[in-house]
């Protein structure tokens, strides 16, 4: 088993861990953390694909690597937006979770 | 010459690794924040400094060697500042602040 396969299996376990955290943690902030973990596991799988496709004197295929760079930036943008939403929820309702039996909270708020 | 450089590298990096180990043991075993900070600064200063010293013979030129030393200086700077800030907060808020 070479290094690329080892890191690919690591990425697979991270995907499972992140998915578990996303499903079972009730707080939005922990869900965002788990989503980031899930995303980085997927990126590791991409990296393994890039490493295996090494050719022409390069260490890895640059196309999947460029895609991962783009994906990391976009994941950060999504995380920033999600955290802004959680903080706004905190401002509006004073709670940090979306409880299933919450009666709708404030009605629309001040936009 | 290459052998001498390699021996130097192994020796200094091992010394640095020893300080890393000591600092981590201190982090885990010391009773409160201030003493743990004291252990961590040894890691930043001595541990990383010895590792950088050990890597200098392997550097590929003067520019790379300067980069290694500047990494050590930057880590020391940020480590020192963060240590001061944490210690100041601990003093203000008490040991569980």
């Amino acid at each position: 088993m070479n290094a690329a396969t080892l890191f690919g299996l690591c990425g697979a376990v991270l995907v499972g861990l992140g998915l578990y955290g996303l499903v079972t943690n009730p707080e939005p902030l922990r869900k965002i953390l788990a989503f980031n973990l899930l995303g980085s596991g997927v990126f590791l799988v991409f990296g393994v694909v890039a490493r295996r496709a090494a050719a022409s004197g390069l260490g890895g295929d640059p196309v999947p690597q460029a895609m991962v760079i783009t994906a990391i930036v976009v994941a950060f943008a999504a995380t920033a937006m999600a955290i802004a939403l959680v903080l706004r929820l905190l401002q509006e309702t004073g709670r940090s979770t979306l409880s299933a039996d919450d009666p709708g909270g404030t009605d629309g708020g001040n936009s | 010459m290459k052998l001498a450089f390699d021996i130097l590298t192994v020796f200094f990096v091992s010394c640095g690794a020893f300080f890393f180990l000591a600092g981590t043991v201190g982090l885990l075993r010391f009773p409160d924040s201030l003493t743990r900070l004291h252990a961590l600064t040894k890691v930043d200063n001595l541990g990383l400094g010895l590792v950088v010293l050990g890597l200098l013979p392997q550097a590929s030129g003067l520019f790379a060697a300067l980069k290694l030393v500047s990494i050590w200086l930057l880590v020391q700077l940020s480590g020192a500042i963060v240590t001061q800030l944490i210690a100041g907060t601990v003093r203000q808020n008490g040991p569980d602040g």
Partner: protein
Amino acid sequence: MTISSAFDVGLVVLILAVGAATIAMREAFAAVIGYVVYGLLLAMAWVRLAAVDVALTEAAIGGGMTGMLMLGAVARLRLAEGNDIRTSLPVRLAAGVLCVLVTAGVAVAILSPPKTIPTLAPMVMENLAQSGLGNPVAGVLFVYRALDTLLEKVVLILALLGVWSLAPDSVWGGIPGLRVYARPGSTLTFLAQLLPPVGIVVAVYMCWVGAKEPGGAFQGGTVLAAMWLLVMIAGLTSVPSIGERWLRRLLVVGPVIFLGIGLAGMVLANAFLAYPPGYAKPLIVAVEVALTLSIGAALGLLAAGPPERV
């Protein structure tokens, strides 16, 4: 087992342990610190996978900027009343089974690669010399898939608009609510005076050298954003209001120049985002410089958050 494979195994074990601790930890603050450590370990894993540009981006954005965002959120969420409900055991067992199945599926896909691995590396290297670039990842980002990079920059601006639109109507156009710790004469002020010049040099170097060696606009822009945030948090400069003209112009200068060069390519080189032969390298460097500035501004503002006062 060679030394490097022992190192790889140790690194993987550490990554999985810190990742599991991040998920399972009760306290949110400790979980966020765990995530920052995880990001840095992952950067080392990227270096082992021979993807140094990705390692730089992961350390800067994945570990640094995301960690900073989350720490700010945890600090504010401490004041919230959380729900103390934990999901019930049957739900957790079912989720665990589902996750094991997903992991097994991905692992089977990893362990059975195709006989001949398809690779685009030869095609990338064939035409890279024409563009004058030495870094194949920069070639992919700015020449072969330049449309992706342009749209990614637009996504950053759209996310920023989304964050800004969460402000109440009354403070639209106001000043973001970044927590400032202005204590003149403190060590934080000292750091904010000493580090930004070094940081700016590092950012310019990373952007400039990205054409030949690992680096590039995104990594340099992130360091610029970090320096700007440090100076704002230490109170050495005031947080600008989002209605300021110079701020908005700084945000759009990158994508506008990129788009302009792309449209000019339609006239000069017969395709959108194509470069006229011989002028590729200067145009790409111009795009990278403009993008570094815009990315620095956008990432800094994303971390500062929506406006909270006028």
